[in-house]
């Protein structure tokens, strides 16, 4: 018998994050949430709203501006078997903690010879838009994915945000969970009940036979928009949302490219030495001779995010950029 589909409610991205935190905390007393302003009215852009009222100050609390020390609390608490959720309002602030993350947390299980676990989640928000500038707009997903030991999660829609955050909190590996603030108002039908998405399972957001478009995080929505424009031109694009960079679901990407023989990858981050480059390299190593056209990347130029609205608009990749890049992929090759 086919199970009936779960009941859903239309939520925006930040409501989905909030629901994920609330339901996780209801399921497991070992989960606590902390970060600057977590228990205040502002509630980290609303993402922690109502949690302190429901779970009390022991499990939801504000902090000093001590990113390193806060990360130490997460590391030790996770080592002791709790499931901490640390929230940084900007990814950029995490750079204070790069020693803790890379030298200690990521390698903790390895160094223990596979005995220890580090079940912590770090939510970090990317301030894309509104002139956030060089120190408030970095994503750095590729940095984290470069290091063994982390799970790197970047949801592209509200339903995924809920399922991926819940599975990240309940995972026994340290997880960097990157949220684009620019997606917080995006709406989608989100399952009401607790649910979990396995890490390393890409989502085929739309099937197509002509071109594989690999995206994640903030490039998902522009990819869907570009796809509709391309459909009108008779180009059927298969959109693959990676959801997690570590673990990386190359099997789904390779299966798609085997069908389309054309590959375009878009990321909201620096292209040099980045995730898109890694995916193209891995595809070329596996099936470079089978490609019908040269693969292509869309992302940030090797420069900092400008604050001037005119420059910012020109800097970030758009649906139009993806449409143009897709046309080039289709015109290229043999």
């Amino acid at each position, binding site marked *: 018998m086919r*199970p009936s589909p779960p009941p859903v409610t239309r939520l925006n991205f930040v409501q989905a994050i909030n629901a994920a935190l609330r339901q996780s905390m209801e*399921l497991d007393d070992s989960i606590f949430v902390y970060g600057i302003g977590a228990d205040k009215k502002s509630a980290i852009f609303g993402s922690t709203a109502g949690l302190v009222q429901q779970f009390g100050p022991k499990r939801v609390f504000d902090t000093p501006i001590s990113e390193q020390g*806060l990360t130490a609390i997460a590391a*030790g608490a996770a080592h002791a078997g709790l499931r901490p959720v640390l929230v940084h309002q900007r990814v950029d602030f995490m750079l204070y903690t790069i020693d803790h993350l890379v030298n200690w947390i990521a390698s903790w299980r390895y*160094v223990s*010879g596979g*005995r220890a676990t580090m079940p912590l989640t770090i939510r970090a928000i990317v301030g894309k838009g509104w002139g956030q500038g060089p120190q408030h707009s970095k994503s750095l997903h590729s940095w984290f994915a470069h290091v063994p030991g982390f799970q790197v999660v970047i949801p592209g829609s509200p339903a995924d945000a809920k399922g991926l955050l819940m599975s990240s909190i309940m995972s026994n590996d340290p997880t960097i969970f990157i949220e684009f603030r620019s997606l917080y108002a995006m709406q989608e039908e989100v399952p009401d009940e607790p649910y979990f998405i396995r890490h390393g399972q890409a989502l085929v957001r739309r099937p197509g036979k002509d071109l594989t478009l690999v995206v994640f995080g903030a490039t998902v929505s522009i990819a869907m928009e570009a796809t509709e424009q391309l459909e009108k031109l008779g180009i059927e694009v298969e959109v693959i949302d990676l959801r997690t960079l570590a673990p990386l679901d190359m099997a789904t990407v390779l299966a798609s490219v085997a069908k389309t023989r054309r590959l375009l990858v878009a990321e909201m981050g620096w292209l040099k030495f980045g995730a898109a480059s890694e995916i193209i390299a891995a595809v070329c190593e596996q099936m470079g001779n089978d490609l019908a056209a040269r693969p292509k990347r869309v992302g940030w130029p090797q420069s900092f995010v400008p604050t001037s609205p005119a420059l910012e608009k020109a800097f970030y990749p758009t649906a139009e950029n993806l449409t143009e890049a897709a046309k080039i992929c289709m015109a290229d090759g043999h």
Partner: protein
Amino acid sequence: MMYLIRRTEEVLMAEYHPADEMRCPMHFCVGQESAPAALSLLVQKNDVMMSHYRSHGYYLGKGGPLPAMVAEFYGKTTGSNGGLAGSMELGSHEQNFCSGAIVGGSMLIPLGTAFAHKYRGTKDISISVFGDGSFDEGITYESMNLAALHKLPLLIICENNKYAANTDIALRLGNPRLLPKVEAMGIPGEVVDGYDLEQLVGVLADAVAAVRSGGGPRYVEVETYRFCAHVGPQPDDYLEYRSTDEIAEWRSKDPLGRLRAQLMADPAASRQVAQIEAEVEQDVAAAVSSAKTAPFPSLEWALGVNWANTYAPIVEGFFREVQPAFRGGQNETRLEPF
């Protein structure tokens, strides 16, 4: 315990270069055995301890098995960390002991485990051990502030041997007095002569009791001295970073030598000393020989331990039973242009 630590280090130092089978940097603790030995009398198995990279004494003091430690230095499967940590990141998962190679890092785990003790309402405590070099690092102050703010059951031990590697404390700190810095963070503390064993045990016992009774974090600074080099079995005094007079003065105060002389004056005690020394000799020799013959781990195994790839039981159950309703985790909602 002091003798066990001292003799283990001596045997390992003698073994290190000629055989060249321990292929990892090792920071021996000859001269600094008193603090880990004193703590060994005071800590429980469920207490969590993290030390700096001069870790051998603390590993043994926390109850870590000697054969697994030596095997770890040899990089063998029987090592306490499966051969993946070596000396600098030595740990004993079963005995709740860990250490690490980066100065300042030994506040990392104990701060959070202390948080966990309080969160769960247990009587366990956490102990962070670092050297005076950690006062050069910002994380030390941040961690102390958080421990004080949350009144965590954390015992902070600073082994002040005056040198960070080969640099004198006076060349590193504008104010080389450490205790006032800690007190300024809201943590009470004490400075104790690490070579006065009776005083050392007394001060540490009081501090452990205060922390265990929920009084918040405590700090104990143990004045001590390293007879051996910063790293490796060969002396590094040819670098002339400390005076020969200073070294001779501390050596003359060696608490292990004085304790032994004291005990040997008593016939009953001297028999016990001889017995302990013989046992230690045997244990260390056995640990070295079993480490030498144990197998190396495989790279294939090592590459597989970075991630657990597991979830809390409730999630595993969901993946098994509920997920089919979600069409294999793939929701097919079409996103609207955004």
